[in-house]
């Protein structure tokens, strides 16, 4: 419970209706898509930068923790208020302020849902490339805080690559602005890249300028199966190495394909060790040429079967398998853990084999999905957190997966972030001085450690 004085100060800012502190309501802000939970003392819904500033002033005056929240789809516990305090929710601050396709930018508030941006842009023939699997729900503020990526980021880059400018409220309540509406801007430090990916620990984003692109004229999609994982990997390297940059290259391993077939009978090849979904986009003629080139290469690397999408419906059908993978694993047990370690592309097959071994060693069913073109892996582990014995095995498996990734020059997270899930593992990929540098930066902008405390810094 917050002190009544603080409560009244907060209500003064947002009004009674946008302030919650009854247990039933607070419980709804104690979780995200990660396993852990923690109750806040109060929830406020903000609608303007000024409100955010005033709330942070109150919070820093009383040293009350403040944790930002978008839609709560984080899978690493980033918005869970482990030190209680205030959850500051951006979901109602969701206006698209400006769409300017002539200058190729949009200005939005942080609570806008990613898919709503896509829908608003589509009529003018534009899109915003970052496409996290959660795009129908997750907010731009959350995407920025986690530097979200998605399948098409292989070609287009991640959230950070699309931020031109932002407005941020610091812990002190000061409102700062950096970047501009210009694609080229080298005025001062590139602060956008400091705040993007900071998981709400450095400041709260209240407005952003995002770069947008014209929707490509043509999309070509195909599904290729390989008998051997090594062949799949060679095909991926061959394609990437040849200079073609597909929009997406998604790999499903044998365990995943079999789990999908068990549940939805899509007619996938159960014996294939690697199934690759490849998508290219661009100008029609270029796509056709690249497509022929890719076909030649995958055949050379031993592809067993190639299916092409002729119509938009075909394309949907080919994507169905990839899209359903998460759900298929989610249905296998009460909980689903989805990891996102990343390794250099050439090491994807070694990593998959190691994950398979780790799964066998601990008696766990681990399916592997990977954004193969950029080495971002998604091992999916269905498990039951109430089964203590199994849970110990799950934790061991994760521990080993992180170590394996680090050994292969990989990293802990490609897109989900560190949050609560992986903070203990930071030393695997960062030395002490680097971690300390992050702490110093944190201390400089948030001396009282009120912004999302208890996380990785």
């Amino acid at each position, binding site marked *: 419970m917050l002190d009544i004085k603080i409560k009244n100060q907060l209500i003064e800012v947002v009004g009674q209706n946008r302030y919650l502190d009854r247990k039933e309501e607070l419980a709804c802000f104690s*979780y995200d*898509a990660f396993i852990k939970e923690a109750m806040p003392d109060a929830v406020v819904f903000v609608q303007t930068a000024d409100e955010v500033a005033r709330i942070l002033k109150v919070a820093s005056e009383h040293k009350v923790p403040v944790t930002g929240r978008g839609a709560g*789809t984080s899978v690493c516990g980033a918005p869970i208020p482990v030190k209680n305090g205030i959850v500051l929710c951006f979901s109602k601050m969701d206006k698209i302020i400006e769409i300017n396709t002539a200058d190729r930018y949009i200005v939005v508030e942080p609570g806008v849902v990613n898919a709503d941006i896509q829908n608003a842009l589509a009529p003018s023939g534009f899109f915003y490339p970052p496409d996290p699997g959660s795009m129908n729900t*997750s907010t731009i503020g959350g995407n920025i805080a986690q530097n979200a990526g998605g399948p098409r980021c292989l070609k287009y880059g991640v959230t950070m690559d699309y931020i031109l400018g932002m407005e941020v409220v610091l812990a002190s309540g000061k409102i700062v602005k950096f970047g501009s509406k210009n694609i080229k801007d080298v005025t001062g430090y590139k602060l956008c890249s400091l705040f993007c990916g900071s998981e709400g620990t450095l400041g709260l984003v209240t407005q952003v300028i995002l770069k947008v692109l014209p929707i490509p004229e043509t999309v070509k999609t195909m599904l290729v199966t390989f008998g051997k994982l090594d062949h799949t990997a060679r095909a991926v390297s061959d394609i990437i190495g040849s200079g073609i940059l597909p929009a997406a290259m998604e790999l499903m391993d044998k365990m995943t394909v079999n789990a999908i077939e068990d549940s939805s009978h899509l007619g996938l090849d159960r014996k294939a060790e690697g199934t690759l979904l490849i998508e290219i986009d661009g100008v029609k003629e270029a796509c056709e040429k690249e497509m022929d080139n890719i076909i030649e290469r995958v055949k050379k690397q031993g592809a067993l079967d190639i299916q092409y999408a002729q119509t938009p419906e075909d394309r949907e059908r080919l994507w169905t398998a990839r899209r359903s993978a998460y759900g298929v694993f989610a249905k296998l047990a009460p909980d689903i853990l989805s990891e996102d370690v990343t390794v250099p592309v050439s090491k994807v097959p070694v990593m998959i084999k190691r994950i398979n071994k780790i799964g066998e060693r601990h008696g766990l069913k681990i399916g592997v999905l990977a954004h193969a073109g950029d080495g971002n892996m998604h091992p999916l582990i269905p498990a039951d957190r109430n089964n203590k014995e199994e849970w110990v095995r799950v934790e061991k498996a994760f521990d080993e997966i992180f170590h394996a990734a680090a050994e292969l020059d990989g990293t802990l997270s490609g897109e989900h972030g560190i949050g609560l899930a992986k903070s203990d593992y930071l030393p695997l990929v960062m030395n002490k001085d680097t971690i300390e540098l992050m702490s110093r930066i944190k201390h400089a902008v948030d001396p009282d450690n009120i912004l999302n405390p208890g996380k990785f810094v």
Partner: protein
Amino acid sequence: MNQKTLQNCGKCGLCLNACPVYKILKEEQASPRARLQLIKAFEEDRLLSSPLLKEIISKCLMCGSCTGACPSGIDHYSQFMEMRQKMAKDHVENPMVKSMIWLLSQEYRTRLGAKMAKLGQKLVPERFKEKYGLGNIPLKRLPEFNITPFREAAEETISHGSKPAGTIVYFTGCATNYLYDDTGFSTLRILEHMGYRVIIPKKQTCCGIPLLFHGAQKAAKNNIVTNINALDLDAADTILVDCATCGTALKHEYPLFTETLGLDKTKVEKIASKVEDIMSFIQKRFHLLSFTKDSIEKVKATYHIPCHLKNSFGSHEQAQTLLNRLPCIVYSPADNADQCCGGGGSFFYEYPEISKQMVTKKIEGVKATLADIWLTDCPVCRMNLAGNMEEKNELQVVHPVKVIAPFLN
């Protein structure tokens, strides 16, 4: 409670933006995920029953859209339904809801209520009609009651010729019986044209769903048992519903509550397997229709997909195929044709502010189609849409059967 299904919610949040209530309020506590998490906390004794908990659970249209978006295959509907029962036991309903339960739980009361209301509609002076209403809907924009209830006006068994194409048992629901007999008579006309024998069991009554939403299990059981006995006819090839929500009761709710209410499982399952919604029924038998050869002036029509048609029957594609095939209309779909209208059984008068925002968006979407007529096959949606239309750009809202029947040979 089934722990397994409860825990299967991975809290991924993918259901949030599928939920019409969340989309309006943009608050986690109004989301399907939150409802499930609260139910779980309640089941695990981490959270006590309270009026607020009850309210959070009830602020839901029971539309089932969340289930469609859920990768973990959660059956939200059943879980919400069970929780509603528990909450209703612990906390009193508001007087409005209570009187609805009283009214719907006995057919004679509903009949009497309808008669009284009809009388009332006549007696209420115009200036009062402007002022008072139900939820968002001003009184004068509520539908007029049928002069005679449909089931009294129609024959119980209607045969056409000696060799009928089959036997249909027609479950009319309360709305067709008391409010919208145009739907009933149009349906009969179509079935007659197709050559079916039709039985409209006199003993049928309110499906009981509105009662179950509010936890009135005992009253609901009476209705359900009455319906099971009235509908379980060996002769029936199909049990036809003109309203997807009533259909959901027969198809899903009765089986769901078989154990809790001690229903006859065999009968319930037999009925459930025979239920068909009228849109896909006609679409599948389109070859049986022959339309008049006179040149028909086509009207531009648009369509509101009732949530239950989409989420319980999965018939929305069929329904739209049918509309595209009709020679008497030009079907002009609205971008938001499948968005919930905010009616949701009794939701529109329990939460009028939320409902109003939803229906306003619907109406905006429909204006863009420039249609002359708005079709929908759920009476609550119909009442809600028609009731919220502004006077000046009035679109007529009717059941799709209404644009089929007059043009048959």
